[in-house]
Protein backbone atom coordinates (compact mmCIF):
# COMPACT_ATOMS: atom_id res chain seq x y z
CA UNK A 1 0.00 0.00 0.00
CA UNK A 2 1.20 3.46 -0.74
CA UNK A 3 1.61 6.01 1.99
CA UNK A 4 0.79 5.93 5.64
CA UNK A 5 -1.54 3.53 7.37
CA UNK A 6 -4.70 5.25 8.52
CA UNK A 7 -6.33 4.02 11.70
CA UNK A 8 -9.98 5.01 11.93
CA UNK A 9 -10.88 5.29 15.58
CA UNK A 10 -14.38 5.67 16.92
CA UNK A 11 -14.64 7.72 20.04
CA UNK A 12 -17.11 9.30 22.40
CA UNK A 13 -16.89 12.86 23.56
CA UNK A 14 -14.28 13.14 26.31
CA UNK A 15 -13.12 9.61 25.57
CA UNK A 16 -9.93 8.14 24.18
CA UNK A 17 -8.85 11.13 22.14
CA UNK A 18 -9.17 13.51 25.07
CA UNK A 19 -7.36 11.07 27.28
CA UNK A 20 -4.46 10.43 24.90
CA UNK A 21 -4.14 14.11 24.28
CA UNK A 22 -4.13 15.01 27.94
CA UNK A 23 -1.53 12.31 28.58
CA UNK A 24 0.54 13.62 25.69
CA UNK A 25 0.55 10.25 23.94
CA UNK A 26 -0.83 11.26 20.60
CA UNK A 27 2.43 12.39 19.10
CA UNK A 28 4.72 10.35 16.93
CA UNK A 29 2.37 7.60 15.92
CA UNK A 30 3.75 5.76 12.86
CA UNK A 31 0.24 5.81 11.42
CA UNK A 32 -2.40 8.46 11.00
CA UNK A 33 -5.43 8.46 13.29
CA UNK A 34 -8.76 9.53 11.92
CA UNK A 35 -11.14 10.22 14.75
CA UNK A 36 -14.91 9.78 14.59
CA UNK A 37 -17.11 10.88 17.41
CA UNK A 38 -20.24 9.03 18.46
CA UNK A 39 -22.89 9.89 20.99
CA UNK A 40 -22.79 6.52 22.70
CA UNK A 41 -21.59 2.96 22.44
CA UNK A 42 -24.32 1.40 20.29
CA UNK A 43 -23.91 3.70 17.26
CA UNK A 44 -20.14 3.34 17.56
CA UNK A 45 -20.48 -0.41 17.32
CA UNK A 46 -22.96 0.06 14.50
CA UNK A 47 -20.20 1.86 12.60
CA UNK A 48 -17.64 -0.80 13.51
CA UNK A 49 -19.99 -3.50 12.27
CA UNK A 50 -20.40 -1.57 9.03
CA UNK A 51 -16.61 -1.35 8.72
CA UNK A 52 -16.72 2.44 8.87
CA UNK A 53 -14.26 2.51 11.78
CA UNK A 54 -11.45 0.14 12.74
CA UNK A 55 -11.55 0.36 16.49
CA UNK A 56 -13.30 2.17 19.32
CA UNK A 57 -13.99 2.10 23.03
CA UNK A 58 -17.34 1.31 24.67
CA UNK A 59 -18.77 0.30 28.04
CA UNK A 60 -19.51 -3.18 29.33
CA UNK A 61 -22.97 -3.64 27.86
CA UNK A 62 -23.07 -2.48 24.21
CA UNK A 63 -20.78 -5.34 23.05
CA UNK A 64 -23.27 -7.82 24.44
CA UNK A 65 -26.02 -6.43 22.28
CA UNK A 66 -23.76 -6.33 19.25
CA UNK A 67 -22.77 -9.90 19.90
CA UNK A 68 -26.43 -10.82 20.18
CA UNK A 69 -26.89 -9.39 16.71
CA UNK A 70 -23.90 -11.34 15.47
CA UNK A 71 -22.06 -8.17 14.56
CA UNK A 72 -18.67 -8.37 12.87
CA UNK A 73 -16.74 -7.05 15.82
CA UNK A 74 -13.95 -8.37 18.00
CA UNK A 75 -13.19 -7.34 21.56
CA UNK A 76 -9.48 -6.75 21.84
CA UNK A 77 -8.78 -5.03 25.15
CA UNK A 78 -10.42 -4.48 28.52
CA UNK A 79 -10.36 -1.78 31.14
CA UNK A 80 -12.05 -1.48 34.48
CA UNK A 81 -13.01 1.24 36.80
CA UNK A 82 -14.02 0.72 40.36
CA UNK A 83 -15.74 2.88 42.87
CA UNK A 84 -19.15 4.45 43.35
CA UNK A 85 -19.66 5.82 39.81
CA UNK A 86 -22.21 3.21 38.75
CA UNK A 87 -25.07 3.79 41.13
CA UNK A 88 -28.77 3.63 41.77
CA UNK A 89 -29.92 7.02 42.95
CA UNK A 90 -33.00 8.26 44.75
CA UNK A 91 -34.01 11.81 45.59
CA UNK A 92 -32.63 12.92 48.95
CA UNK A 93 -36.12 13.19 50.46
CA UNK A 94 -37.07 9.70 49.31
CA UNK A 95 -38.23 7.10 51.80
CA UNK A 96 -36.15 4.49 50.04
CA UNK A 97 -33.08 3.74 52.14
CA UNK A 98 -32.23 0.27 50.97
CA UNK A 99 -32.24 -1.48 47.59
CA UNK A 100 -34.81 -3.91 48.99
CA UNK A 101 -37.32 -1.08 49.07
CA UNK A 102 -37.14 -0.74 45.31
CA UNK A 103 -39.94 -3.28 45.13
CA UNK A 104 -43.01 -1.72 43.57
CA UNK A 105 -41.14 1.41 42.57
CA UNK A 106 -40.54 3.15 39.28
CA UNK A 107 -36.92 3.09 38.13
CA UNK A 108 -35.43 5.00 35.21
CA UNK A 109 -32.63 3.46 33.19
CA UNK A 110 -31.20 3.72 29.69
CA UNK A 111 -32.02 0.54 27.86
CA UNK A 112 -29.02 -1.57 26.99
CA UNK A 113 -26.61 0.52 29.03
CA UNK A 114 -24.21 -0.62 31.73
CA UNK A 115 -26.67 0.84 34.22
CA UNK A 116 -29.29 -1.49 32.83
CA UNK A 117 -26.98 -4.38 33.56
CA UNK A 118 -26.32 -3.05 37.02
CA UNK A 119 -30.03 -2.68 37.72
CA UNK A 120 -30.69 -6.28 36.71
CA UNK A 121 -27.92 -7.53 38.95
CA UNK A 122 -29.09 -5.43 41.90
CA UNK A 123 -32.63 -6.66 41.53
CA UNK A 124 -31.32 -10.18 41.27
CA UNK A 125 -29.12 -9.82 44.31
CA UNK A 126 -31.94 -8.47 46.47
CA UNK A 127 -34.45 -10.99 45.29
CA UNK A 128 -36.77 -8.59 43.53
CA UNK A 129 -38.55 -10.01 40.49
CA UNK A 130 -38.63 -7.95 37.33
CA UNK A 131 -42.39 -7.93 37.54
CA UNK A 132 -42.21 -6.25 40.94
CA UNK A 133 -40.76 -3.00 39.62
CA UNK A 134 -41.68 -0.63 36.86
CA UNK A 135 -38.75 0.13 34.61
CA UNK A 136 -38.94 3.36 32.61
CA UNK A 137 -36.51 3.37 29.73
CA UNK A 138 -35.09 6.87 29.48
CA UNK A 139 -31.88 8.25 28.00
CA UNK A 140 -29.67 9.97 30.62
CA UNK A 141 -30.69 13.53 29.79
CA UNK A 142 -34.38 12.61 29.78
CA UNK A 143 -33.97 10.56 32.92
CA UNK A 144 -32.22 13.45 34.64
CA UNK A 145 -35.18 15.69 33.90
CA UNK A 146 -37.63 13.04 35.05
CA UNK A 147 -35.58 12.38 38.18
CA UNK A 148 -35.34 16.02 39.23
CA UNK A 149 -39.09 16.41 38.69
CA UNK A 150 -39.82 13.34 40.86
CA UNK A 151 -41.43 11.57 37.95
CA UNK A 152 -39.47 8.43 38.86
CA UNK A 153 -38.57 6.95 42.23
CA UNK A 154 -35.04 5.84 41.38
CA UNK A 155 -32.46 6.07 38.64
CA UNK A 156 -29.80 3.59 37.68
CA UNK A 157 -26.97 5.53 36.10
CA UNK A 158 -23.23 5.90 35.55
CA UNK A 159 -20.71 8.65 35.89
CA UNK A 160 -20.53 11.59 35.24
CA UNK A 161 -24.32 11.66 35.61
CA UNK A 162 -24.02 10.14 39.05
CA UNK A 163 -21.75 12.91 40.22
CA UNK A 164 -23.90 15.57 38.65
CA UNK A 165 -27.06 14.24 40.26
CA UNK A 166 -25.36 13.92 43.63
CA UNK A 167 -23.95 17.41 43.42
CA UNK A 168 -26.76 19.32 41.76
CA UNK A 169 -30.02 17.40 42.05
CA UNK A 170 -29.93 16.43 45.74
CA UNK A 171 -29.67 12.78 44.88
CA UNK A 172 -28.70 10.04 47.25
CA UNK A 173 -27.01 6.79 46.24
CA UNK A 174 -28.54 3.64 47.70
CA UNK A 175 -26.25 1.16 46.00
CA UNK A 176 -23.19 1.50 43.80
CA UNK A 177 -20.64 -0.39 41.79
CA UNK A 178 -18.21 -0.78 44.65
CA UNK A 179 -20.59 -3.34 46.16
CA UNK A 180 -19.92 -5.63 43.22
CA UNK A 181 -23.17 -5.16 41.41
CA UNK A 182 -21.40 -3.63 38.42
CA UNK A 183 -18.30 -5.12 36.92
CA UNK A 184 -17.07 -1.69 35.76
CA UNK A 185 -15.56 -3.04 32.58
CA UNK A 186 -15.02 -1.17 29.38
CA UNK A 187 -13.72 -2.55 26.10
CA UNK A 188 -11.80 -1.64 23.02
CA UNK A 189 -13.65 -3.22 20.13
CA UNK A 190 -12.19 -3.68 16.65
CA UNK A 191 -13.98 -4.21 13.37
CA UNK A 192 -13.26 -7.83 12.48
CA UNK A 193 -12.43 -6.73 8.96
CA UNK A 194 -9.60 -4.46 10.20
CA UNK A 195 -7.95 -7.40 11.93
CA UNK A 196 -7.40 -9.04 8.58
CA UNK A 197 -5.01 -6.30 7.49
CA UNK A 198 -1.53 -6.71 8.89
CA UNK A 199 -0.61 -3.04 8.60
CA UNK A 200 -3.73 -2.13 10.52
CA UNK A 201 -3.08 -4.80 13.10
CA UNK A 202 0.27 -3.33 14.03
CA UNK A 203 -1.30 0.10 14.23
CA UNK A 204 -4.02 -1.28 16.46
CA UNK A 205 -1.49 -2.89 18.72
CA UNK A 206 0.42 0.33 19.06
CA UNK A 207 -2.77 2.26 19.67
CA UNK A 208 -3.91 -0.13 22.38
CA UNK A 209 -0.58 0.20 24.11
CA UNK A 210 -0.75 3.96 24.08
CA UNK A 211 -4.29 3.89 25.37
CA UNK A 212 -3.43 1.60 28.25
CA UNK A 213 -0.58 3.91 29.15
CA UNK A 214 -2.88 6.91 29.04
CA UNK A 215 -5.37 5.18 31.31
CA UNK A 216 -2.67 4.58 33.84
CA UNK A 217 -1.65 8.19 33.57
CA UNK A 218 -5.20 9.31 34.33
CA UNK A 219 -5.15 7.26 37.52
CA UNK A 220 -2.15 9.19 38.72
CA UNK A 221 -3.02 12.63 37.40
CA UNK A 222 -6.64 12.97 38.42
CA UNK A 223 -6.75 16.75 38.70
CA UNK A 224 -5.13 17.30 35.31
CA UNK A 225 -7.39 14.77 33.70
CA UNK A 226 -10.54 16.19 35.32
CA UNK A 227 -9.63 19.69 34.16
CA UNK A 228 -9.05 18.75 30.55
CA UNK A 229 -12.05 16.41 30.51
CA UNK A 230 -14.35 19.15 31.74
CA UNK A 231 -12.89 21.48 29.14
CA UNK A 232 -13.50 19.08 26.27
CA UNK A 233 -17.03 18.07 27.27
CA UNK A 234 -18.36 21.28 28.75
CA UNK A 235 -19.08 19.35 31.92
CA UNK A 236 -19.22 21.34 35.16
CA UNK A 237 -15.63 21.22 36.54
CA UNK A 238 -16.88 20.20 39.98
CA UNK A 239 -18.84 17.33 38.46
CA UNK A 240 -15.88 16.28 36.35
CA UNK A 241 -13.62 16.31 39.35
CA UNK A 242 -16.01 14.29 41.50
CA UNK A 243 -16.50 11.84 38.71
CA UNK A 244 -12.78 11.34 38.11
CA UNK A 245 -12.21 10.94 41.83
CA UNK A 246 -14.78 8.17 41.90
CA UNK A 247 -12.26 6.01 40.16
CA UNK A 248 -10.16 5.92 37.02
CA UNK A 249 -10.47 3.34 34.29
CA UNK A 250 -7.36 1.17 34.29
CA UNK A 251 -6.22 -1.51 31.85
CA UNK A 252 -6.82 -5.09 32.94
CA UNK A 253 -6.08 -8.38 31.24
CA UNK A 254 -8.79 -9.69 28.98
CA UNK A 255 -8.98 -12.94 30.90
CA UNK A 256 -11.50 -15.62 31.66
CA UNK A 257 -12.77 -13.74 34.66
CA UNK A 258 -13.74 -10.85 32.45
CA UNK A 259 -15.36 -13.14 29.92
CA UNK A 260 -17.26 -15.03 32.59
CA UNK A 261 -18.56 -11.86 34.14
CA UNK A 262 -19.74 -10.58 30.77
CA UNK A 263 -21.28 -13.95 29.96
CA UNK A 264 -23.24 -13.75 33.20
CA UNK A 265 -24.41 -10.29 32.27
CA UNK A 266 -25.49 -11.49 28.85
CA UNK A 267 -27.37 -14.35 30.42
CA UNK A 268 -29.24 -12.01 32.74
CA UNK A 269 -30.33 -9.96 29.73
CA UNK A 270 -31.46 -13.13 28.05
CA UNK A 271 -33.35 -14.14 31.16
CA UNK A 272 -35.01 -10.73 31.31
CA UNK A 273 -36.00 -11.24 27.65
CA UNK A 274 -34.21 -8.05 26.72
CA UNK A 275 -32.24 -10.00 24.16
CA UNK A 276 -33.94 -12.83 22.34
CA UNK A 277 -31.24 -15.49 22.19
CA UNK A 278 -28.43 -16.92 24.23
CA UNK A 279 -24.95 -15.90 23.11
CA UNK A 280 -21.38 -16.95 23.81
CA UNK A 281 -19.39 -13.88 24.69
CA UNK A 282 -16.05 -15.61 24.32
CA UNK A 283 -16.68 -16.02 20.59
CA UNK A 284 -16.23 -12.29 20.18
CA UNK A 285 -13.02 -11.97 22.15
CA UNK A 286 -9.47 -12.13 20.79
CA UNK A 287 -6.68 -11.68 23.30
CA UNK A 288 -3.71 -11.46 20.96
CA UNK A 289 -3.77 -7.70 20.52
CA UNK A 290 -4.08 -6.49 24.10
CA UNK A 291 -1.62 -4.44 26.05
CA UNK A 292 -1.64 -3.61 29.73
CA UNK A 293 0.35 -0.47 29.20
CA UNK A 294 3.46 -1.54 31.01
Amino acid at each position, binding site marked *: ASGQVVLRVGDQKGGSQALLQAAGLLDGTPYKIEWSTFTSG*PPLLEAANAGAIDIGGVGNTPPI*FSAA*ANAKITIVQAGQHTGPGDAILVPSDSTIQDPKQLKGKTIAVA*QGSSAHAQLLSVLNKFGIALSDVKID*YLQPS*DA*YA*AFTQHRVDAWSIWDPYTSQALLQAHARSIVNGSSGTANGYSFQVAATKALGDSAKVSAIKDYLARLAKAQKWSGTHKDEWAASWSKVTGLDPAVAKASVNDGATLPIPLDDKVIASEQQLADSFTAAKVIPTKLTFADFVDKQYESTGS
Partner: protein
Amino acid sequence: MSIPVLAADRTHDAPSVAAIPTRKFRRRPLSGAWRWLSPVALLLVWQVASGTGILPEDKLASPAKVLAAGLDLATSGQLGDAFAVSLRRVLIGVAVGAVIALALGITAGLSRWGAVLVDPPVQMLRTLPFLGLIPLFIIWFGIGEEPKIALVALGFAFPLYLNVYAGIRDTDPQLLEATAVLGFTRWERLAHVVLPAALPQALVGLRQGLGVAWLSLIVGEQINADAGLGYLINNARDFLRTDQVVVGLVVYAGLGLLTDALVRALERKALRWRNTR
Protein backbone atom coordinates in the same frame (compact mmCIF):
# COMPACT_ATOMS: atom_id res chain seq x y z
CA MET B 1 -88.51 30.82 -32.25
CA SER B 2 -88.11 29.87 -35.86
CA ILE B 3 -84.85 28.45 -37.08
CA PRO B 4 -84.87 27.71 -40.81
CA VAL B 5 -82.73 24.65 -41.13
CA LEU B 6 -80.53 25.20 -44.13
CA ALA B 7 -78.54 22.37 -45.58
CA ALA B 8 -75.01 23.06 -44.45
CA ASP B 9 -72.20 22.74 -46.97
CA ARG B 10 -71.59 19.05 -46.92
CA THR B 11 -69.65 18.71 -50.12
CA HIS B 12 -65.94 18.80 -49.37
CA ASP B 13 -63.78 19.15 -52.42
CA ALA B 14 -60.51 18.82 -50.54
CA PRO B 15 -59.64 15.62 -48.74
CA SER B 16 -59.27 15.73 -45.00
CA VAL B 17 -55.65 16.56 -44.42
CA ALA B 18 -53.12 17.13 -41.65
CA ALA B 19 -54.72 16.11 -38.42
CA ILE B 20 -54.50 18.62 -35.61
CA PRO B 21 -51.18 18.29 -33.86
CA THR B 22 -51.78 16.44 -30.64
CA ARG B 23 -51.43 18.54 -27.56
CA LYS B 24 -52.18 17.30 -24.10
CA PHE B 25 -52.68 19.49 -21.06
CA ARG B 26 -55.88 18.42 -19.45
CA ARG B 27 -54.27 15.79 -17.28
CA ARG B 28 -56.77 13.00 -16.95
CA PRO B 29 -55.15 10.97 -14.19
CA LEU B 30 -54.47 7.33 -14.91
CA SER B 31 -56.34 4.72 -12.98
CA GLY B 32 -55.31 4.40 -9.35
CA ALA B 33 -54.21 0.80 -9.88
CA TRP B 34 -51.18 1.95 -11.86
CA ARG B 35 -49.90 3.66 -8.77
CA TRP B 36 -48.96 0.26 -7.41
CA LEU B 37 -46.62 -0.27 -10.31
CA SER B 38 -43.52 1.42 -9.01
CA PRO B 39 -43.78 0.30 -5.37
CA VAL B 40 -44.12 -3.29 -6.59
CA ALA B 41 -41.29 -2.77 -9.07
CA LEU B 42 -39.08 -1.43 -6.28
CA LEU B 43 -39.85 -4.52 -4.26
CA LEU B 44 -38.94 -6.75 -7.17
CA VAL B 45 -35.68 -4.93 -7.81
CA TRP B 46 -34.82 -5.26 -4.15
CA GLN B 47 -35.56 -8.98 -4.19
CA VAL B 48 -33.59 -9.59 -7.39
CA ALA B 49 -30.65 -7.52 -6.17
CA SER B 50 -30.62 -9.43 -2.91
CA GLY B 51 -31.13 -12.78 -4.58
CA THR B 52 -28.28 -12.31 -7.03
CA GLY B 53 -25.97 -10.93 -4.37
CA ILE B 54 -25.65 -7.51 -5.97
CA LEU B 55 -27.07 -6.13 -2.74
CA PRO B 56 -25.28 -8.16 -0.08
CA GLU B 57 -27.17 -9.10 3.03
CA ASP B 58 -25.00 -6.84 5.19
CA LYS B 59 -25.91 -3.74 3.17
CA LEU B 60 -29.62 -4.36 3.27
CA ALA B 61 -31.52 -7.42 4.42
CA SER B 62 -33.38 -9.21 1.63
CA PRO B 63 -37.16 -8.88 1.32
CA ALA B 64 -37.48 -12.52 2.26
CA LYS B 65 -35.52 -12.01 5.43
CA VAL B 66 -37.42 -8.83 6.23
CA LEU B 67 -40.68 -10.63 5.58
CA ALA B 68 -39.60 -13.37 7.94
CA ALA B 69 -38.68 -10.84 10.62
CA GLY B 70 -41.96 -9.07 9.98
CA LEU B 71 -44.00 -12.25 10.27
CA ASP B 72 -42.11 -13.04 13.41
CA LEU B 73 -43.00 -9.69 14.91
CA ALA B 74 -46.54 -9.96 13.67
CA THR B 75 -47.27 -13.48 14.93
CA SER B 76 -45.72 -12.73 18.29
CA GLY B 77 -48.27 -9.94 18.52
CA GLN B 78 -45.57 -7.33 19.00
CA LEU B 79 -46.27 -5.57 15.72
CA GLY B 80 -50.00 -5.44 16.24
CA ASP B 81 -49.63 -4.17 19.79
CA ALA B 82 -47.08 -1.59 18.75
CA PHE B 83 -49.35 -0.41 15.98
CA ALA B 84 -52.37 -0.14 18.25
CA VAL B 85 -50.44 1.82 20.85
CA SER B 86 -48.94 4.18 18.31
CA LEU B 87 -52.20 4.62 16.45
CA ARG B 88 -53.90 5.80 19.61
CA ARG B 89 -51.15 8.33 20.23
CA VAL B 90 -51.30 9.53 16.64
CA LEU B 91 -55.07 9.90 16.65
CA ILE B 92 -55.18 11.94 19.83
CA GLY B 93 -52.15 14.01 18.82
CA VAL B 94 -53.54 14.70 15.38
CA ALA B 95 -56.88 15.78 16.81
CA VAL B 96 -55.20 18.20 19.21
CA GLY B 97 -52.79 19.43 16.54
CA ALA B 98 -55.57 19.96 14.02
CA VAL B 99 -57.52 22.17 16.38
CA ILE B 100 -54.43 24.25 17.15
CA ALA B 101 -53.27 24.49 13.55
CA LEU B 102 -56.69 25.43 12.20
CA ALA B 103 -57.31 27.99 14.90
CA LEU B 104 -53.92 29.64 14.41
CA GLY B 105 -53.94 29.35 10.62
CA ILE B 106 -57.39 30.87 10.33
CA THR B 107 -56.57 33.64 12.79
CA ALA B 108 -53.39 34.51 10.93
CA GLY B 109 -55.03 34.19 7.54
CA LEU B 110 -58.11 36.24 8.22
CA SER B 111 -56.88 39.16 10.23
CA ARG B 112 -53.90 41.37 9.67
CA TRP B 113 -53.22 41.59 13.38
CA GLY B 114 -53.60 37.86 13.65
CA ALA B 115 -50.92 37.42 11.01
CA VAL B 116 -48.57 39.82 12.73
CA LEU B 117 -49.05 38.35 16.19
CA VAL B 118 -49.48 34.66 15.47
CA ASP B 119 -47.21 33.98 12.53
CA PRO B 120 -43.79 35.02 13.87
CA PRO B 121 -43.91 32.87 17.01
CA VAL B 122 -45.11 29.90 14.99
CA GLN B 123 -42.31 30.41 12.47
CA MET B 124 -39.95 30.48 15.43
CA LEU B 125 -41.32 27.41 17.13
CA ARG B 126 -41.67 25.23 14.09
CA THR B 127 -37.91 24.95 13.65
CA LEU B 128 -37.30 23.80 17.21
CA PRO B 129 -35.76 20.34 17.31
CA PHE B 130 -37.79 17.69 19.06
CA LEU B 131 -34.74 16.11 20.61
CA GLY B 132 -33.91 19.39 22.28
CA LEU B 133 -37.48 19.81 23.42
CA ILE B 134 -37.81 16.43 25.07
CA PRO B 135 -36.19 17.35 28.40
CA LEU B 136 -38.46 20.38 28.58
CA PHE B 137 -41.48 18.29 27.68
CA ILE B 138 -40.63 15.81 30.40
CA ILE B 139 -40.39 18.61 32.90
CA TRP B 140 -43.71 20.04 31.77
CA PHE B 141 -45.66 16.94 30.81
CA GLY B 142 -44.00 14.12 32.73
CA ILE B 143 -43.07 10.79 31.19
CA GLY B 144 -46.50 9.32 30.57
CA GLU B 145 -48.55 9.59 27.40
CA GLU B 146 -48.68 13.39 27.46
CA PRO B 147 -45.22 14.25 26.10
CA LYS B 148 -45.61 11.69 23.31
CA ILE B 149 -48.98 13.07 22.32
CA ALA B 150 -47.66 16.61 22.60
CA LEU B 151 -44.85 15.78 20.18
CA VAL B 152 -47.30 14.24 17.71
CA ALA B 153 -49.59 17.25 17.99
CA LEU B 154 -46.69 19.62 17.44
CA GLY B 155 -45.33 17.65 14.51
CA PHE B 156 -48.73 17.50 12.88
CA ALA B 157 -49.70 21.10 13.56
CA PHE B 158 -46.85 22.94 11.86
CA PRO B 159 -47.22 21.70 8.27
CA LEU B 160 -50.97 22.04 8.51
CA TYR B 161 -50.70 25.56 9.89
CA LEU B 162 -48.28 26.69 7.20
CA ASN B 163 -50.44 25.36 4.41
CA VAL B 164 -53.74 26.56 5.82
CA TYR B 165 -52.33 30.02 6.35
CA ALA B 166 -50.81 30.17 2.87
CA GLY B 167 -53.96 28.76 1.32
CA ILE B 168 -56.08 31.40 2.99
CA ARG B 169 -53.75 34.20 1.94
CA ASP B 170 -53.95 33.01 -1.67
CA THR B 171 -57.75 33.15 -1.76
CA ASP B 172 -58.96 35.01 -4.82
CA PRO B 173 -59.81 38.53 -3.58
CA GLN B 174 -62.43 38.84 -6.31
CA LEU B 175 -64.48 36.10 -4.70
CA LEU B 176 -64.07 37.64 -1.27
CA GLU B 177 -65.31 40.93 -2.65
CA ALA B 178 -68.25 39.27 -4.33
CA THR B 179 -69.41 37.66 -1.10
CA ALA B 180 -68.68 40.74 0.99
CA VAL B 181 -71.03 42.66 -1.26
CA LEU B 182 -73.64 39.99 -0.64
CA GLY B 183 -73.46 41.01 3.03
CA PHE B 184 -71.53 37.97 4.20
CA THR B 185 -70.00 38.26 7.63
CA ARG B 186 -66.40 37.31 8.22
CA TRP B 187 -67.48 33.85 9.37
CA GLU B 188 -69.74 33.28 6.42
CA ARG B 189 -66.93 34.29 4.09
CA LEU B 190 -64.75 31.82 5.93
CA ALA B 191 -67.18 28.98 5.39
CA HIS B 192 -68.16 29.74 1.82
CA VAL B 193 -65.02 31.18 0.29
CA VAL B 194 -61.88 31.04 2.35
CA LEU B 195 -61.96 27.44 3.52
CA PRO B 196 -63.00 25.94 0.18
CA ALA B 197 -60.33 28.03 -1.54
CA ALA B 198 -57.67 26.97 0.94
CA LEU B 199 -58.74 23.33 0.86
CA PRO B 200 -56.38 22.00 -1.82
CA GLN B 201 -53.41 23.44 -0.03
CA ALA B 202 -54.72 22.42 3.38
CA LEU B 203 -54.84 18.86 2.08
CA VAL B 204 -51.17 19.10 1.17
CA GLY B 205 -50.59 20.18 4.76
CA LEU B 206 -52.66 17.26 6.01
CA ARG B 207 -50.60 14.87 3.95
CA GLN B 208 -47.36 16.22 5.32
CA GLY B 209 -48.69 16.53 8.83
CA LEU B 210 -49.81 12.92 8.99
CA GLY B 211 -46.37 11.82 7.87
CA VAL B 212 -44.68 13.93 10.49
CA ALA B 213 -47.12 12.74 13.15
CA TRP B 214 -45.95 9.16 12.75
CA LEU B 215 -42.35 10.28 12.58
CA SER B 216 -42.73 12.21 15.82
CA LEU B 217 -43.36 8.94 17.55
CA ILE B 218 -39.86 7.74 16.78
CA VAL B 219 -38.63 10.55 18.96
CA GLY B 220 -41.56 10.52 21.35
CA GLU B 221 -41.33 6.82 22.01
CA GLN B 222 -37.78 7.23 23.24
CA ILE B 223 -39.36 8.59 26.37
CA ASN B 224 -40.22 5.76 28.67
CA ALA B 225 -41.96 3.63 26.11
CA ASP B 226 -42.31 -0.10 26.12
CA ALA B 227 -44.62 -0.30 23.16
CA GLY B 228 -45.29 1.46 19.90
CA LEU B 229 -43.86 1.48 16.42
CA GLY B 230 -41.24 4.07 17.30
CA TYR B 231 -40.17 2.04 20.27
CA LEU B 232 -39.97 -1.04 18.09
CA ILE B 233 -37.58 0.67 15.69
CA ASN B 234 -35.52 2.29 18.44
CA ASN B 235 -35.29 -1.00 20.19
CA ALA B 236 -34.34 -2.94 17.08
CA ARG B 237 -31.69 -0.38 16.39
CA ASP B 238 -30.26 -0.62 19.90
CA PHE B 239 -29.94 -4.34 19.38
CA LEU B 240 -28.52 -3.99 15.88
CA ARG B 241 -31.45 -5.95 14.50
CA THR B 242 -31.24 -4.40 11.05
CA ASP B 243 -33.85 -6.81 9.73
CA GLN B 244 -36.33 -5.53 12.30
CA VAL B 245 -35.31 -1.96 11.61
CA VAL B 246 -36.17 -2.57 7.98
CA VAL B 247 -39.49 -4.10 9.03
CA GLY B 248 -40.17 -0.86 10.85
CA LEU B 249 -39.19 1.12 7.78
CA VAL B 250 -41.47 -0.98 5.60
CA VAL B 251 -44.35 -0.41 7.99
CA TYR B 252 -43.69 3.33 7.86
CA ALA B 253 -43.57 3.22 4.06
CA GLY B 254 -46.89 1.42 4.14
CA LEU B 255 -48.28 4.12 6.40
CA GLY B 256 -47.05 6.68 3.87
CA LEU B 257 -48.94 4.94 1.08
CA LEU B 258 -52.00 4.61 3.28
CA THR B 259 -51.93 8.31 4.17
CA ASP B 260 -51.56 9.10 0.52
CA ALA B 261 -54.54 6.94 -0.44
CA LEU B 262 -56.61 8.51 2.32
CA VAL B 263 -55.83 12.07 1.33
CA ARG B 264 -56.33 11.27 -2.34
CA ALA B 265 -59.79 9.94 -1.56
CA LEU B 266 -60.55 13.12 0.39
CA GLU B 267 -59.25 15.21 -2.50
CA ARG B 268 -61.39 13.37 -5.02
CA LYS B 269 -64.44 14.02 -2.93
CA ALA B 270 -63.76 17.57 -1.84
CA LEU B 271 -62.42 18.87 -5.13
CA ARG B 272 -65.01 17.32 -7.42
CA TRP B 273 -65.86 20.74 -8.77
CA ARG B 274 -62.44 21.00 -10.37
CA ASN B 275 -62.57 17.74 -12.26
CA THR B 276 -65.56 18.72 -14.28
CA ARG B 277 -63.68 20.60 -16.93
